């Protein structure tokens, strides 16, 4: 059944405005923003995002009021070729509205946070002019993300998919001419390129999936595809779903394409929170949930998806343990949590996956933004210090490069940044899955589903990953907020202003109560998503909840034993380094995956490119073919044949001869033209006499 009939009731007709608002915001900022003060720019962008949020709320209300039936909101025609008919149509159903609420809600909070964050960031990096650009990009991201989640077809989803990829690229490389420490370098650009190229590989898979759909079904519109899919061979569905999985691994940072996400932390922290934690990276999860009717047809594909997610969850969690950068830890944590979600949607536990997606958006955004607050706090301390020292006349102190994101430089921030500390604690507890924070409920639902559905391997992988999660978060808390400052900057760190902490408080509140969305027994989210997906209420399994909570508490305890009881001293290596040995070296170095990729793919690719450029293009095509064959033949033809023989000896000779004849003739006849009028008269007479003579003799 096609859902083209639009109801006249409700606010569904407003659906396009979820895109229009941010687009208007970005256009105003981009073209008129030059004269605006920073506050106006920031609030304008925030209001644009908030407008989207209001629309999303209205859509959710309309959906609730009308019984949750999916609605299509037609905007404009797009592609009409032969049998293919695609329009710009928004699909408003419980799944997409859930995503819209998360994207615009968390997005708006992060916009507001960024007003304060970027204000200081552009000053620390000495380029105030980029403030406006940041908000233009941020609004563009919201618009693209809304197209992604609101699209009615795979193609429209793909447009948004690429749009957010572009925004990701632009924002990772926001400080494109420096590295994360603000030194002049192309490191951030390279990180952006890495993200973009890696995502291209994933997009390739997504595109193949789309082509297969179009080839076998003749449509890429969601309902049409889902309606036709059961009639197809299962092999085709497996191919489609697995190619789609490649796209998911790219966008949602799963094995094997996760490598770009840690590098993406080069972007400003609000970007890390919004794009690389809360929203964009969950697009893959959304894609699988959206394609649920396809995945449920092929259990083997589901299993692969689930295993991919579970392995990623554990793998990334282990790396997070060995990281020192506060944002890198969170980045690997994000990959790990995305693994949870992918595993969940892979198992068919779509509600659990979406539930975790929502709560994760809350607490991971909270954590990232708090981390940003910590980093800025340290920057403030460092600058304060530097100014102080400059004032007193020492210069050697701040010459060394200071990394405000390195946890080894932190410590004891509990006292200097109390608000941030408490917010961070809430985020940590939510992420670690401690009762009754949001993370507990959503993670537990995933584990329970895995346990119940018989995905034993997945269950155990995720449980161990959860243990590691609690451990690395505990490690982070102890290293950052407890003990003594290991750097003077940390000792002088300053708390962030209210404009940054206020959104954090909202997120903290959501991280605490977010679990209420889908409490066991109430199943609010399940009932809500039931209108769109074929789901079943997840059951609360007490043993699973107990095991995971116990493991989490145990992990925090262990982390206290290692990092909390005896705080790290400045310059001291990680206490885990000695007992774990090469294992910790592996974690520290991300299991050498990047190096492996370089050795196996990138360098081979560079070799190939070099071969093509040097041997094939330069030596063969340029040196031999172009220079020798074409240019040589041409030269021979032109120089020897055409020039020497045809031109010089043929044409030139002919025309030179012609000229020579004319010249000689005229030299001879010019005597006749002697200027004496009587001679001319004589010539006339000669003519008269001759003609007369001719007439007589005729």
């Amino acid at each position, binding site marked *: 059944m096609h859902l083209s009939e639009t109801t006249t009731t409700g606010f569904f007709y407003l659906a396009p405005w979820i895109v229009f608002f941010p687009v208007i915001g970005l256009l105003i900022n981009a073209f008129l923003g030059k004269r605006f003060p920073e506050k106006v720019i920031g609030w304008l962008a925030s209001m644009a995002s908030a407008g989207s949020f209001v629309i999303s709320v209205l859509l959710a209300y309309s959906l609730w009021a009308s019984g949750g039936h999916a609605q299509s909101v037609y905007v404009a025609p797009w592609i009409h070729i032969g049998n293919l008919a695609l329009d710009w149509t928004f699909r408003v159903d419980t799944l997409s509205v859930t995503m819209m609420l998360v994207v615009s809600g968390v997005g708006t909070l992060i916009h507001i946070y960024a007003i304060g964050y970027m204000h200081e960031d552009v000053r620390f990096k000495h380029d105030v002019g980029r403030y406006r650009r940041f908000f233009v990009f941020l609004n563009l991201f919201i618009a693209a993300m809304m197209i992604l989640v609101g699209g009615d077809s795979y193609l429209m989803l793909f447009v948004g998919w690429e749009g957010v990829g572009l925004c990701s690229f632009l924002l990772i490389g926001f400080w494109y001419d420096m590295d994360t420490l603000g030194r002049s370098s192309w490191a951030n650009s390279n990180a952006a390129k890495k993200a973009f190229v890696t995502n291209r590989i994933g997009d390739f898979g997504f595109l193949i999936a789309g082509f297969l759909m179009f080839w076998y079904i003749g449509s890429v519109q969601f309902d049409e595809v889902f309606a036709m899919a059961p009639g197809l061979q299962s092999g085709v569905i497996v191919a489609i779903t697995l190619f789609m999985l490649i796209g998911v691994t790219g966008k949602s940072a799963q094995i094997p394409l996760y490598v770009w996400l840690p590098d993406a932390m080069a972007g400003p922290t609000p970007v890390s929170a919004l794009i690389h934690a809360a929203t964009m990276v969950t697009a893959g999860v959304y894609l699988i949930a959206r394609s649920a009717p396809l995945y449920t047809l092929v259990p083997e594909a589901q299993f692969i998806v689930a295993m991919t997610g579970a392995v990623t969850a554990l793998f990334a969690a282990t790396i997070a343990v060995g990281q020192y950068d506060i944002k890198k830890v969170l980045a690997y944590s994000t990959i790990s949590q995305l693994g949870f979600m992918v595993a969940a949607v892979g198992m068919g536990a779509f509600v659990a996956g979406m539930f975790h997606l929502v709560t994760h958006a809350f607490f991971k955004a909270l954590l990232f933004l708090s981390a940003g607050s910590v980093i800025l706090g340290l920057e403030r301390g460092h600058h304060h210090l530097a100014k102080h020292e400059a004032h007193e006349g020492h210069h050697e102190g701040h010459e060394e490069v200071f990394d405000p994101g390195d946890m080894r430089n932190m410590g004891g921030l509990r006292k200097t940044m109390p608000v941030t500390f408490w917010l961070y604690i809430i985020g940590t507890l939510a992420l670690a899955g401690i009762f009754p924070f949001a993370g507990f409920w959503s993670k537990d639902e995933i584990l329970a589903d895995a346990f119940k559905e018989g995905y034993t391997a997945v269950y155990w992988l995720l449980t161990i990953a959860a243990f590691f999660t609690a451990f690395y978060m505990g490690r982070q808390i102890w290293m950052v907020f407890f003990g003594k400052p290991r750097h003077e900057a940390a000792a002088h760190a300053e708390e962030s202003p209210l404009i940054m902490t206020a959104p954090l408080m909202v997120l903290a509140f959501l991280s605490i109560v977010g679990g209420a969305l889908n409490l066991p027994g109430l199943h609010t989210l399940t009932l809500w998503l039931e209108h769109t997906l074929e789901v079943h209420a997840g059951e609360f399994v007490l043993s699973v909840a107990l095991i995971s909570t116990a493991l989490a508490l145990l992990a925090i305890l262990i982390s206290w034993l290692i990092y909390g009881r005896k705080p790290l001293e400045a310059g001291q290596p990680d206490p885990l380094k000695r007992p774990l040995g090469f294992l910790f070296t592996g974690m520290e170095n991300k299991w050498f995956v990047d190096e492996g990729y370089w050795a196996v793919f990138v360098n081979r690719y560079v070799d190939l490119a070099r071969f093509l450029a040097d041997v094939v293009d330069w030596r063969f095509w340029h040196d031999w073919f172009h220079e020798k064959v074409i240019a040589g033949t041409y030269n021979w033809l032109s120089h020897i044949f055409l020039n020497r023989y045809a031109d010089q000896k043929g044409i030139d000779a002919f025309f030179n001869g012609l000229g020579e004849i004319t010249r000689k003739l005229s030299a001879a006849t010019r005597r006749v033209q002697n200027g*004496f009028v*009587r001679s001319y008269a*004589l010539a006339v*007479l*000669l003519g*008269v*006499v001759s003609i*007369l*003579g001719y007439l*007589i003799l005729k």
Partner: protein
Amino acid sequence: MSIDLILFLVLALVAVATALGMLFSRNAVYSALFLVLNFATVAVFYVLLSAPFIALTQITVYAGAIMVLFLFVIMLLGAERLPASPALPWQRPLAIFLALVLIAETGYLLLFRQAVTATVSLPQTDVFGSPSQVGTALFNQYLLPFEVTSVLLLSAMVGVIVLTVRKKGERE
């Protein structure tokens, strides 16, 4: 020998003699005067050929107006005689030779080809060539050419003025 022939021969002799005189006079004034005489002789021929109007026009326009103009210019310029200058070497013999050939050709045509055999008598009292007849023809059949002639004369007049007028600031 009829009186016509005698008259013709005498007049022809005068005409040729004056023409030669004009041709060979060193002085341009003599040449002009010889030419006046020649024109007068030709005017008599016109009378003999029943063209009294033309004859009178010949006297007034040619012998009168034009030749006076010539004499005037000759005297104005003071160019009665030219100083000797190296002549074109072959000009004179070649000219005489070609002139002889020309006269030979016309003579041949007239004498041996018998191209024109008609004869004329002295003018009778008929009206052919009378001024009234000529005037009628001029103002009827040849009205347009006649008027165009006036334009021609006017433009000649303007041209002469333009050619000889002294421009402002031009030094003599």
